[in-house]
């Protein structure tokens, strides 16, 4: 009986320890992009810090919804990476598109684009940072851009692969329907 009690107590303590452990995740690595405090507003209008994306590898790119030429290719690039993975593995990696143009990219615009481009809403996150944060998130992702007088943007078109803790492990400038084999291989290694 006494032993039973001790075991129960031990189990209780272990359970408690597990709970506190789960509530307090390990600190982010020092080279994690999620070290940047970055509230993102997604297509559903919900605002969360992007560190919520932790826990799963992510393919991240910057774009804007009114972009006429390159951004559709960025979306295609994301889809091409998904297609290159076995069907069973596709849910293990997320795709995150972050807007360079938060003044215009409202949740409604993001939703419209997700529908128009037929992206899987369970795997894809389309989101906009606060206007003041665009330069910073571009900075941690190594994206260069300039807003033009007509409201368009010049920007580098890169897909950036983050590991589950937000460390940059690969990047490619090859966007469009034909995926970069080295980048796909890097994604596979994260699964």
């Amino acid at each position, binding site marked *: 009986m006494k032993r039973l009690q001790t075991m129960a107590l031990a189990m209780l303590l272990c359970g408690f320890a597990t709970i506190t452990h789960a509530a307090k995740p390990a600190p982010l690595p020092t080279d994690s*992009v999620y070290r940047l405090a970055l509230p993102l507003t997604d297509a559903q209008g919900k605002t969360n810090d992007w560190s919520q994306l932790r826990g799963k590898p992510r393919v991240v790119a910057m774009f804007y919804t009114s972009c006429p030429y390159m951004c559709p290719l960025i979306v295609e690039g994301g889809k091409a990476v998904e297609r290159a993975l076995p069907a069973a593995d596709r849910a293990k990696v997320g795709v995150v598109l972050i807007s360079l143009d938060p003044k215009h990219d409202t949740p409604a615009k993001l939703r419209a684009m997700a529908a128009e481009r037929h992206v899987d809403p369970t795997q894809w996150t389309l989101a906009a940072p606060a206007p003041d944060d665009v*330069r910073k998130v571009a900075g941690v992702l190594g994206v*260069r851009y300039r807003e033009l007088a007509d409201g368009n943007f010049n920007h*580098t078109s890169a897909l950036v692969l983050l590991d589950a803790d937000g460390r940059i492990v690969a990047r490619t400038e090859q966007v469009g329907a034909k995926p970069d084999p080295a980048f796909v291989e890097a994604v596979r290694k994260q699964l």
Partner: protein
Amino acid sequence: MRAVLAGGLVFACIAAGAAIAGAAARTYVGLPGGQFRTALRYEDYKGKPAHVAPFALMRTPVTNGQFLAFVRAHPEWRRDRVPAVFAETRYLQHWAAPDALGPDARPDQPVTWVSWFAADAYCRAIGARLPTWIEWEYAAAADETHRDARKDPAWRERILSWYSRPSNQALPRAGLQAPNVYGVQDLHGLVWEWTDDFSSLLVAGDNRDQGDPDKKQFCGASALSMDDRENYAVLMRVAMLSSLEAHDATTNLGFRCARSASS
């Protein structure tokens, strides 16, 4: 008694406010806005001058001493605590310790070996921001007597002679050079300076050898080119800034802060 105390407190606050305003006036100089023809060829300007809104700029670059005070007040920016994603390993490497300057970093020398993130954080911490490229170029086009001295061969020669000086000598202290017509010092001849939008200068060296960089890397637009190829002051700055990542820190690269006009 309470009234006297309160009155004294109000007076103290006013005095402190005036002191802060006075310090700001010594730190910053106001620049009038105006039309400005950048030396960069942006396709959306089509040779038209850009409009620069009135703004205030620090008279001199931020010094080691000032940056040390910032690091002490914001220890998350100490070189031993800053996340690698915000500053590379060489960040503040010339300081003797994470919170001490030492012989290679005198307090009145401009701070160098700072990343863009650190420079941005410093400016935000004092209610300011980094200047934009066009603001920096606009302020730096002036000499001691003209707002736009860029066509003056003597001015160009002077700047060029700075670039040809070896960079391994100790930096002079900030504020030694004559102020330009606006009252700003050291825009040339001392350190490189971060701008807020340094990463809008899309001439990264790694696109030059990729066949058609315009289509491949940049969204429906071209990389930068220069309208004024003899303007070394700008050419060198742009080449420098366009090669950097936001976490980079390097020798002779510092910054100063700006503020938008409050009106």
